[in-house]
């Protein structure tokens, strides 16, 4: 019936005033700090601030994509097309730049494609009532197909604007971040504000809570549902641009499987896949968790290829189970 069990709430209300709704996020934060602590105690170079900055530099595009995914998942939907849209955006940018279009125009076109595809998928999902999983899966095939159709090998970007955006280092003391990190933070802030303080954002939560009810309450369900897929498309497009900054190229097979990373990040951040509960901040933490896991493994540098996978799986498992045990003791929840 609800996201929280009856008896549990009673505990919460009468015993402690911990913000129960934010608890999963807090637990994620705690566990993240523990993981970071382990890294610092094991590897000397890990304590360097730049390591943290690098996590942001290296995962900025994933974070932006995951933020878009958060909107979709909050409504109870899912968007599998993000990875392909990221690749497609990077690919289109690279191809257009190669053809000599001015960077500003390229940026505009690249930023339009993703949301357009998202909008179309949202419309199909809403008007024809086809499950988001399938529609976005088709979108994923479509965008990936478009990538290889544009070029079957990677296209380097040599444009001045792109290279400077990619290589500009913004110094903070001895350390640095990139332009992408700033863009990422702006996206995160805008998204968090949208979800918390705009009607659109609140409607997103309402639809995730109960779509039927939201409709009967007179909320613009259709518009909102289409909007979240458009937003996700936009975020993927921004992510694609960031990725093209990051790699200074467009490659047809880049960002394969990124949708799973994004979903994982969102869920690790405490957002429920059935929708209706979660925060952008949680998603940030989720991405950081994935980033730190990867950094730990690289710093270790002794893992075999397959052990790498097993260890990633194991760390994910440990994290999720701990989060689960500490965070929310929900015996069961029914979706409707």
């Amino acid at each position: 019936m609800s996201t929280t069990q009856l008896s549990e709430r009673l505990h919460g209300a009468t015993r402690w005033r911990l913000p129960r709704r934010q608890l999963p996020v807090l637990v994620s934060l705690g566990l993240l700090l523990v993981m970071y602590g382990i890294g610092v105690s094991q590897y000397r170079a890990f304590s360097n601030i730049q390591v943290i900055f690098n996590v942001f530099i290296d995962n900025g595009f994933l974070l932006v994509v995951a933020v878009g995914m958060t909107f979709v998942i909050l409504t109870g939907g899912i968007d599998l097309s993000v990875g392909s849209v990221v690749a497609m955006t990077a690919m289109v940018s690279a191809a257009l730049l190669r053809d000599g279009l001015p960077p500003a125009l390229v940026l505009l076109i690249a930023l339009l494609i993703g949301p357009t595809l998202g909008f179309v998928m949202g419309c199909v999902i809403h008007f024809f009532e086809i499950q988001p999983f399938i529609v976005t899966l088709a979108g994923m095939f479509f965008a990936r197909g478009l990538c290889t159709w544009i070029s079957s090998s990677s296209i380097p970007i040599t444009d001045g604007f792109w290279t400077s955006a990619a290589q500009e280092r913004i110094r903070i003391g001895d350390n640095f971040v990139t332009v992408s990190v700033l863009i990422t933070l702006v996206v995160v802030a805008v998204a968090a504000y949208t979800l918390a303080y705009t009607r659109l954002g609140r409607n997103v939560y309402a639809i995730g809570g109960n779509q039927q009810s939201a409709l009967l309450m007179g909320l613009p369900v259709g518009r909102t549902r289409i909007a979240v897929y458009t937003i996700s498309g936009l975020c993927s497009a921004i992510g694609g641009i960031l990725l093209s900054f990051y790699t200074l190229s467009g490659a047809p097979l880049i960002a394969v499987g990124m949708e799973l990373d994004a979903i994982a990040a969102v869920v690790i951040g405490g957002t429920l896949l059935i929708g209706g509960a979660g925060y952008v901040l949680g998603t940030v933490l989720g991405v950081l968790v994935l980033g730190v896991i990867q950094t730990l493994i690289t710093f270790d540098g002794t893992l075999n290829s397959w052990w790498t996978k097993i260890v990633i799986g194991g760390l994910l498992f440990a994290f999720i189970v701990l989060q689960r045990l500490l965070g929310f003791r929900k015996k069961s929840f029914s979706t409707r």
Partner: protein
Amino acid sequence: MSDTRPVLTMTAISKFFPGVRALDGVDFRLFPGEVHALMGENGAGKSTLIKVLTGVYGHDTGAITLDGQPVSFSGPMEATEAGVSTVYQEVNLCPNLSVAENIFIGRQPRRLGAVRWRDMRRRASALLARLNLDLDVGELLGNQSLAVQQMVAIARAVDVQARVLILDEPTSSLDADEVKQLMRIMRQLRDEGIAIVFVTHFLDQVYEIADRITVLRNGRLVGEYPTAELPQLALVEKMIGKELDALERLDEQAGRDLAAVETGTPVVEATDLGKAGSVEPFSLTIHRGEVVGMAGLLGSGRTEAARLFFGADRADRGRLAVDGRPVSIRGPIAAIERNIAFCSENRRTEGLVGELSVRENIILALQAARGWLRPVPRRRQDELVQRYIEALSIRPADPEMPVRNLSGGNQQKVVLARWLITEPRLLILDEPTRGIDIGAKAEIQRLVVQLSDGGMAVLFISAELEEVLRLSHKVAVMRDRQLVTELANDDSLDADRIMRVIAGGAEQKDGTRHE
């Protein structure tokens, strides 16, 4: 009133669902400043008429005008914008949002596009205070009892500056006091010139507040009458379409024969059973053939106590004995194996599997008890299901209809049927008559009497004291999650006396246990 022009008219509305003629040429009109009761049995088409009006469903024929202008809403959003504010039958809110947000979502107070949370919470508190409801509006709605949720839904609807307010069974989960508050608000709004459509199965409420009554039967219009010109009995007859003796039969049953209850080893005996944070330890015995009523205000913990018997929640203290033997009930399965059945008050989330058919829903508990390897033979399923469809007059009488397509009251009957076919020794009924029309209610009450006469033990929870009094051999009263007393239902017991106990009056001193 009839000299003014109607604010709303619906003419010759028909609505077909696959295989069901939910509405067939129904006319309906609504005048400003009136409370108009929409009456009919379960499945008569009341909710459908409302949903057609607000554009949730399209209609197959007919026309709707609002203020003389033809309208056709594409959905509740447009209807709301046009000034038609609705509380639908099942509580339709978002459990994951706070109470305040549920009231204001879609029309939150904003500054520069930003939602002003504090302002919103303040206004929500004020609004609920008007309904005599004092709670933390920042809490999640899902944590509130059904009654509170219902009140929140009402608050949301009345706060909209509407010309037409539609309330579809708003009172089914409210207690007397809350109903009173609602009536007060309705009168106030009516006096402001708002037209109100009111659907309920409580005749008293209709006669208390409605100016005019429209009766539907089987999707057809029976007629429209000024309340004053339609005596109660005539109304009932119009609703069910025949002369009714069920009501009279009910009256005969008033007061149970206490001597008929067997003594000896109780079917179940709870000793200091309790759960931290949920129900204080209580003791209660139920004998063969005994109906124990449970009374108390909303949120007094009746449901929670009942859930402990069934293992739906696990008790963390106290003991439970079945037939004198101590048992540990770990979960519903353990309870079912000991022939305990529990009919939840919340049919939508805890009762039905909407996608499955009526037959499958009815057979579910029986099947679960037999284990998956021994399916109930199809012939026997059909027999059983047919029997209970008839016994409880579930309509439409199509066992293969997905249960979500049934009207609210009929869904309730399906849940009831599910437990009856398991032939339990203890049947726990939590608000079994909520949202059920008067004929069916009588039917269910008769059934309870009949079952207990046949030796079944029944724990009967209801917000309607008359009903509790009529059926129970003894009444357990709960207050603030404590069982405050048990009262034998002898001649001296009446609703007033129970009320006083509930309210925490003098009675509890001569009550035996606790406090």
